[in-house]
């Protein structure tokens, strides 16, 4: 047994312990945030240094290869960015946000456990750690009743989805030998696993919790929900499908994927059209994006994997950036995230508006941003594998999405100013937004480096 196999999990657990010990000792909670950032940077450096390109297996259920290592780094990166945006946000907010940083690190440990195993039970364990921390993160704004509502909703529906998931896992594990699905019962198990994941990934028709939870939770938590569970969830689902179906999905599964994907795109985009609240609008938009990502699952084994991972990476930057921009829309300790609150924002904070516009046009899929390439790769791959009509739906719904993505820009740049004092981002937020924007542009213009890492990560997928 190689002890390095425990490094990722151990480093995060140690960080959590340090934070928990320091928490009662420190009066100013920002310092806790800075310490968390340092710990995250330190842990990820150790992981990159020790793991490198190595493939390490521990029979107890840990499996580290390039795919896991890539996702571990991505998970650290997500949490790092969330920490950056949350320090300014929490210090401007009227609620105290006790326990925010340790919970975020707990969620990180869940993500890491999830991606570093091939054993369904351990994946479930990781997913549950991630989910339970997420429930708490969503209810963390004690002064806001909607935050409590969001937490409750997230918890109840999340628990339901866990039930589906665990039942599916039980069916699969009891009937399959190794990674081969022999009977129809095990296919049913996989379908239930798909249902369970669809809840977590907010795919239609299992999406109902998403808008309320995204709207009610404080922005840094929302940003985390739109990145962490989604990216880790999709990646793990990709790996499970690839392992158990070894590149050939049964038609039962592809048909369900087709329908779920089409419904998510249609319902997500059409519902987003009517929203006045930007968080809610982005929540529906993220449902739609889940639909686009799921399109790539249809061509697993035919080149779909790498484009799914590329989409997830682009999504990290553009969707994360869009949510992160909202952290600056805070005044007197309250969030102001209605469309009207953006009026004339370009005058008050030109950089914030420029960044938010960049993320929105990237979400809409305009060049030269990551959004276009991500969509391009997925769509052209789908066409090559014969999914013309699904691509057609995807393209039509993309068109619809242009309307609502451009609407905040109308308010920021083309309306007169109102609502003074909202939207002055702090230094760390600007730094985070800069990183998001850099990623969005870099992936859109020079995607080759990112693709190199992605190809290395799915090396085992073939």
């Amino acid at each position, binding site marked *: 047994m190689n002890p390095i196999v425990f490094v990722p999990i151990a480093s995060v657990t140690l960080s959590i312990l340090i934070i928990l010990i320091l928490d009662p000792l420190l009066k100013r909670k920002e310092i806790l945030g800075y310490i968390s950032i340092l710990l995250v940077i330190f842990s990820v450096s150790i992981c990159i240094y020790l793991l490198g390109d190595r493939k390490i297996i521990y029979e107890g259920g840990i499996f580290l290869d390039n795919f896991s290592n890539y996702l571990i780094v991505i998970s650290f990166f997500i949490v790092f960015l969330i920490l950056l945006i949350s320090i300014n946000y929490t210090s401007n907010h009227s609620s105290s946000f006790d326990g925010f940083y340790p919970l975020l690190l707990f969620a990180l440990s869940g993500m890491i456990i999830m991606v570093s195993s091939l054993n369904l039970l351990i994946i479930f364990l990781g997913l549950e750690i991630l989910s339970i921390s997420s429930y708490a993160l969503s209810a963390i704004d004690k002064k806001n009743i909607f935050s409590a509502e969001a937490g409750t909703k997230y918890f109840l529906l999340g628990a339901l989805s866990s039930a589906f998931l665990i039942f599916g896992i039980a069916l699969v594990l009891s009937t399959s030998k190794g990674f081969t699905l022999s009977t129809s019962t095990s296919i049913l198990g996989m379908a239930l696993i798909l249902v369970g994941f669809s809840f977590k990934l907010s795919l239609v028709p299992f999406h109902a919790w998403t808008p309320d939870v995204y709207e009610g939770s404080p922005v840094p938590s929302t940003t985390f929900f739109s990145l962490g569970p989604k990216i880790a969830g999709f990646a793990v689902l990709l790996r499970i499908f690839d392992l158990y179906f070894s590149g050939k999905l049964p038609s039962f599964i592809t048909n369900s994927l087709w329908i779920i994907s089409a419904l998510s795109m249609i319902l997500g985009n059409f519902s987003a059209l009517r929203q006045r609240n930007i968080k809610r609008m982005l929540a529906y938009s993220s449902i739609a994006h889940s639909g686009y990502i799921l399109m790539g699952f249809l061509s697993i084994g035919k080149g779909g994997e790498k484009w799914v991972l590329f989409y997830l990476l682009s999504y990290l930057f553009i969707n994360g950036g869009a949510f992160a921009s909202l952290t600056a829309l805070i005044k007197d300790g309250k969030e102001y995230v209605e469309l009207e609150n953006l009026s004339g924002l*370009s005058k008050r904070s030109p950089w914030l508006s420029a960044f938010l516009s960049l993320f929105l*046009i990237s979400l809409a899929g*305009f*060049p*030269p941003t990551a959004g*276009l*390439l991500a969509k*391009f790769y997925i*769509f*052209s791959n789908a*066409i*090559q594998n014969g999914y*013309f009509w699904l*691509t*057609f739906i995807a*393209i*039509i719904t*993309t*068109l619809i999405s*242009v*309307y609502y993505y*451009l609407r905040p*820009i*109308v308010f920021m*740049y*083309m309306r007169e100013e109102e609502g003074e004092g909202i939207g002055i981002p702090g230094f760390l937020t600007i730094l985070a937004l800069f990183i998001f924007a850099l990623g969005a542009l870099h992936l859109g213009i020079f*995607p*080759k480096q990112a*693709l190199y890492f992605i190809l290395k990560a799915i090396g085992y997928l073939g």
Partner: protein
Amino acid sequence: MEIIRELPVISLTIFTPLAGAVILLFLRGERKNLIRGFSLLISILTLIFSIAIFISFERGKSGFQFLEKKDWLGMGINWSVGLDGISLPLFLLTSLIFPICILASWSQIENKVKEFHIFLLLTETAILGVFASLNLFLFYVFWEGMLIPMYFIIGVWGSSERIYATIKFVLFTMVGSLMMLLSFFVLYSYYFKASGIYSFEFSDLLSLSLSPKIQLWLFLGFFLSFAIKVPMIPFHTWLPDAHTEAPTAGSVILAGVLLKMGAYGLIRFAFPLFPSALEQMRTPMIYLSISAIIYGGLMALAQKDLKRLVAYSSISHMGFITLGLLTLNDIGVQGAVIQMVNHGLSTGGLFLIVGAIYERTHTRIMREMGGLSKKLPILSAFFVIIMLSSIGLPGLNGFVGEFLIIAGTFKINITYSAISAFGIVLSAAYLLWAFQRVMQGKAKEGNGIRDLRIREILYFIPIILLIFWIGLYPKTFFAKMEKDVKGTIEVIKSKKSFDFKELLK
């Protein structure tokens, strides 16, 4: 001029405005004249590059020159640019229009000057890229890349109904371009199936022969995108709004070069790639063109707003251009290509006139003007020249293009040419009537109106010069485009016969 052939001169021209825009980001917004001067400098530098390209372009050769090809994203997506006789005049026109736009907005844009010039320069990069791309994906990137800066230019600096106009503009364009993207994907996967290689290269895709049925569907995707941009009837409804609500520079860009992107796309990509679909669609498209000529003219006749009048005249003139392209004979297509340049100059010029008048009278309604020629003699002289060029007076540029188009149409059908000649009569009617209402008659009150300043005269001069140049000596342009127009028509015709053979098997 040898050295120019060795440099990646097209990339240089395309990226100069982009580099300018990036530098502008870091200039302080309060220093308005510095920003204007700097953008002017950048756009003139771009113009110098493209004039150098134009001069060193070898006339005897057919095919693309100054080719550059570098791997960009892999999977057949390359940075591949080049110019031939069809795209060269448009490339030059684009780089000429932008310095003019910057000069024209010098006193008209006072608000958010920095952002305005950034968007202007970004638009220039995108449009130059559209005319030079030889890779379909690259073409799409530039085609879409133009949309966002234009969205801002219309939406932020436009007049009262700007938000409605700009959203309509973006959504219309997006419908088309996404359908085109879908066609690209299908074409791409067919090419992969046929050859085992991923490629978006225009030259590769040209060798692909598809069944007429598939061609028709793919052609419709391309056609929708280009027809919306041209715009052909019935996809034209975005144009009057966008042109009217945009600031002067925006209208000049829209009329001057953006509309040409559609016509250019038809002759460069849609026709050669899908010749048998073209054969099926040709007659309906000719009908659409002719009805655009007549409809645009009649609508222009009915307008009260001068800017809207020019916008509708644009629809009518673009009808001529698509008609010329559809003749598929040397005369007609050459006429259409030169008419693209002419229309850029004359309609762009008319929008500049409207802008200059609006700056002085603060109205665009013709009834509220009148007798301006006494107060604005220079402006009025320019108006006359540009108007006559737009009508097609012999000796001015418009005549050359319209004459060739009608002559080309005559070869295929006399009735078509007779009806489209009636369009010229209409254009004489609405423009002369507009001139009479605006410039002649009794002067309305409103003293203190100044005639054109030196800066304003400066930007009319290149337009006027080119109007006479093309009118009197069009050979400068024809000599460079002749071979390539012939070549393109040959490609369209030869591929068509090949496809029929395939059908007979």
